[in-house]
């Protein structure tokens, strides 16, 4: 009688949780999920998804002399096409047999190990994608502000002090990262993260790629070549830059139409005036009543700073009462607002910005929903040792292929260069 192999059993468990993956992925405080829930999802092939944009109005209006006057010539609406191509991400999870054997019930352990690792891996994959979603489309997770190579623990090759924002917030332990020069032209090599200290913006790595210098940037694993392309995140879509490209369009061609209105915080604390100004820019651009779908997406630091201003009180009712004032919740939604715009804060958001987003204009071009990597129905794969024989471990992957688009950059606004409050 053939004995059932562990890998077969684990595959069975993973298949059973397969339909739960999207549920595990969704969480309303994750920016990607908010886009998924409020924006569009378009199923696409490997060809570019095309987004027709009505960029400039047409026609020529003016006073006319109907007593034989020249009525002049006309013009037409200017259209252009933004394009977006999905990119793929993977998250590999590897489990050794020893993990399973660390229980008094091997079969039960197999199931528990699979479940636990699916949960942990999904949480980590979500967190990774959400972190990448904060970037400007090139996968840059941080910039090296200083490098130390002495006085470090054994096994640590270098310690980077990361420039803030975002500091070390977008990294996680044991992540493989790559160092690029500041122009994103030269890939200096890769390293594994051994320590992440977001409070002090420190990052320790197990190797220091040759040539690594201050002002170099660190990108996530998997990117190759010069000017790599990653997820088009907040900093990609919400910018008033007039150079570079946006969804295959040249920003210089449409310097006003593709620029998101911005308010410079000038390294000062957030003020009601700055918030009002940012919201008003959207109102003026879209019509004075078209801000009902806005959310104020920001970091916990700015959320706290806004509360310190003492403008709003609903969060105190909701969060600070410790249940003692729950009766008050019956009347108020308890939703925190910034000048009436609901606040969505994230630990991963840029600490110096508040982004006002109308997510109804955002969407995802999806080629592959999040799922196990599947080869002929098999989702768990053996690991091979150096001898060519099997290793006492197995591996499975989460994969997803998508890209994020925004059909109306002027439907949002942002405040940048805000001071980070003390204590963060």
């Amino acid at each position, binding site marked *: 009688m053939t004995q059932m192999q562990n890998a077969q059993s684990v595959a069975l468990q993973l298949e059973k949780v397969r339909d739960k993956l999207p549920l595990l992925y969704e969480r309303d405080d994750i920016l990607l999920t908010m886009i998924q829930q409020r924006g569009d999802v378009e199923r696409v092939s490997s060809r570019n998804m095309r987004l027709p944009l009505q960029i400039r109005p047409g026609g020529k209006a003016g006073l006319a002399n109907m007593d034989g006057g020249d009525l002049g010539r006309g013009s037409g609406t200017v259209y252009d096409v933004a394009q977006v191509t999905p990119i793929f991400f993977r998250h590999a999870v590897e489990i050794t047999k020893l993990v399973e054997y660390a229980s008094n019930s091997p079969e039960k352990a197999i199931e528990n190990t699979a479940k636990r690792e699916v949960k942990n891996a999904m949480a980590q994959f979500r967190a990774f994608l959400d972190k990448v979603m904060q970037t400007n489309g090139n996968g840059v997770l941080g910039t090296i502000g200083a490098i130390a190579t002495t006085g470090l623990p054994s096994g640590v090759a270098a310690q980077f002090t990361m420039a803030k924002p975002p500091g070390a917030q977008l990294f996680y332990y044991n992540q493989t990262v790559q160092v690029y020069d500041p122009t994103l032209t030269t890939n200096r090599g890769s390293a594994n993260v051994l320590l992440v200290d977001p409070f002090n913006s420190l990052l320790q790595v197990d190797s220091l790629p040759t040539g690594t210098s201050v002002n170099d940037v660190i990108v996530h694993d998997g990117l190759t070549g010069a000017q790599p392309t990653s997820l088009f995140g907040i900093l990609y879509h919400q910018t008033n830059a007039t150079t570079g490209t946006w969804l295959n369009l040249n920003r210089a061609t449409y310097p006003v139409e593709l620029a998101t209105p911005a308010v410079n915080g000038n390294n000062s604390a957030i003020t009601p005036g700055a918030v009002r100004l940012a919201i008003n820019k959207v109102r003026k651009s879209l019509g004075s009543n078209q801000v009902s779908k806005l959310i104020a997406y920001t970091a916990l630091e700015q959320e706290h700073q806004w*509360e310190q201003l003492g403008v709003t009180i609903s969060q105190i009712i909701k969060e600070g009462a410790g249940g003692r004032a729950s009766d008050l919740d019956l009347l108020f939604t308890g939703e925190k607002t910034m000048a009436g715009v609901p606040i969505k804060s994230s630990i991963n958001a840029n600490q110096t910005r508040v982004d006002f987003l109308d997510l109804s204009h955002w969407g995802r071009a999806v080629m592959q929903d999040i799922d196990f990597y599947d080869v002929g129905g098999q989702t768990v794969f053996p690991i091979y040792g150096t001898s060519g024989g099997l290793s006492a471990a197995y591996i499975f992957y989460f994969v997803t292929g998508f890209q994020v688009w925004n059909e109306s950059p002027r439907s949002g606004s942002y405040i940048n260069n805000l001071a980070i409050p003390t204590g963060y």
Partner: protein
Amino acid sequence: MNALPHIRVTRETYETPAGISERLLAAGGTNLYGEANFRVVWGGSRLTWMGGRWTDRDESGNVIRETIETRRVPKYLPVERWHIERWMPAESYGSPEQWEAQTTEVEDGIRILALGPYPARGEYEHCFTLNGANGEFLPLSPAACDWIVRAVAWAKRQPRREQGGAIAAREARRNRDWNRDADDMLDDAVPAFHGAQFVGCVG
């Protein structure tokens, strides 16, 4: 022929009942000018200056004109709600110089203060909107007024240092909630031994 003219209401305006204003004054106290710290305003009645380039659109969203000017427009949206405001001192807005630097916009060579003049006597800012759990309209009834007064009184008692702790507690609670939900989902999908009963057998 029916020649009656059609009247289109573009914005309703209401005054806050005096009784409610007095109750909020008693609950929230006064600022250094002797004015109420908290007040209730109707969205359609509360106007503010907004200057800059305006893009006006027709009902279909088509651009019909662009103009550079300062307009008096409703400060809060939606306009058909009661909003509770809190007075903010002038220093909340930075110095007049900072205000001018930050809010001055230049459009076609025209300098314009996007938020109007500096609020030298402070300004009332949006605190929360009186609406239901799904955003629906709630009338400014005596019961609603009671809730508002209690909220204001509650807010006045809260030390601000606790608010940072509240944010941290919320984040921790979100993580716990997700972990619990994930465990529930996975337990539901993959019960141990596929739901069959078992006992552990050591050694």
